[in-house]
């Protein structure tokens, strides 16, 4: 075997091991911000009123609900002054291992952080994992006071969100990644309040 063939073989083997190491152990999961749906709907105000009561009594799940700028008092009695922001991440498991305990939470809020009353992790609603070689969407939620915000400010707020995503594999252990919404281009804003 010539030296050239030996070198090519060694380089190929090293490259294969590097790719396998990266995709199976170091970064078995790829995560991208998919969309941010900013909706003012009837459930928004019902939820915020209900949470204010739960906050006062301390009866809410502190493992999945995080207070940002909320003291138990509603800044306004107008349902149109609040918005629920559903931040969805696309999670692709490219490894041969099942990843469990997949969860996304708010890590940082940039501009307009003072408007975000509280947020809930993706596992507040539904938990679980992502199977080998499969995809899954996970959504964490923010409830926001928008009485002093316009559409531009709302989009700025979304672009400033950084999320922490955690997952666990039997072989890889617990891993964490930080995902920024600054490059999320699918941001929709809608108001469907019926005021009934």
């Amino acid at each position, binding site marked *: 075997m010539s030296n050239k063939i030996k070198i090519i073989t060694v380089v190929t083997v090293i490259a294969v091991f590097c790719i396998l190491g990266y995709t199976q152990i170091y970064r078995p999961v790829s995560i991208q911000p998919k969309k941010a749906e900013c909706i003012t*709907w009837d459930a928004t105000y019902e*939820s915020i009123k209900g949470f204010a009561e739960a906050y006062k009594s301390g009866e809410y799940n502190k493992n999945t609900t995080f207070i940002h700028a909320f003291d138990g008092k509603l800044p306004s009695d107008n349902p149109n002054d609040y918005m*629920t922001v559903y931040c969805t991440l696309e999670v692709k498991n490219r490894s041969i291992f099942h990843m469990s*305990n997949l969860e996304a939470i708010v890590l940082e809020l940039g501009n307009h952080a003072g408007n975000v009353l509280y947020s809930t992790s993706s596992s507040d609603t*539904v*938990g679980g994992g992502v199977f080998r070689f499969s995809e899954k969407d996970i959504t964490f939620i923010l409830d926001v006071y928008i009485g002093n915000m316009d559409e531009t400010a709302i989009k700025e707020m979304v672009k400033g969100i950084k999320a922490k995503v955690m997952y666990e594999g039997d072989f890889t252990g617990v891993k964490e990644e930080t995902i920024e919404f600054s490059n999320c281009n699918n941001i929709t804003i809608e108001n469907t309040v019926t005021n009934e």
Partner: protein
Amino acid sequence: MNVSKKFKVFASMVLVGVLVTVNAVGAQAYDGKKAADYAKKHAENYNSNYPDFDKDGGDCTNFASQCVFAGGIAKDPVPTKNIKYSHINDIYKTKDYWNSAKYTRTTTLFGWTVRSKTGFVTTSTWSVVSKNDSDSWWGFYNYMKNEGASAKEYSVDTVAKLNTFIAACDVGDVLQIRSGTNVNKWHSVIVTDKSYDYTNKRYDMKIAYHTSNTPPTDFRSSRWRAFGTDSLWTIIKVSKI
């Protein structure tokens, strides 16, 4: 009324009575309160008599089935002769049975045990929400509907629709969710409480489920927002012939 006409009326009444009685005896009585009591007890404390699918696709429908069984719907076991080694500690894909139980399969040679395996065998109808288009087997939804359960889907994107939906729910009902953009249902929960709010003149209810483990939680003020505006909810009123 002549004798012949009286006889016809009497015979008709007897026939109706017999049909009602046969129907009542034939259908298994379902006690939604017992199902809800089980849900309250085991929403956060798993029953070790059943497998746990939390890390294996989700435990929501396995938990809903346990509640329904606690409510009085009898299991429909897989015959032992059907069980292969590959079914043990896995899902048994079927349209015909509804069960989760421990089985042991043993292979003997000249009286000697050469291989033996014990573990849970859980049917797809017990642990899977609903069949997808391409599946030849059934999930909980398909099996229960075939057995006589009623199922109706509701949109709940406004307060008015939510009020209609909650009014239609009863304690012990299984609710299943799908997104408005996907025909496949993906989650099961159970109604644990329902009450009437005289101040606001509307019903409220609580639901419980597994994955993530959720003890009875108010629907209107918490879970409604959490599941999002495009969620469609199917109420499954369980009964079994």
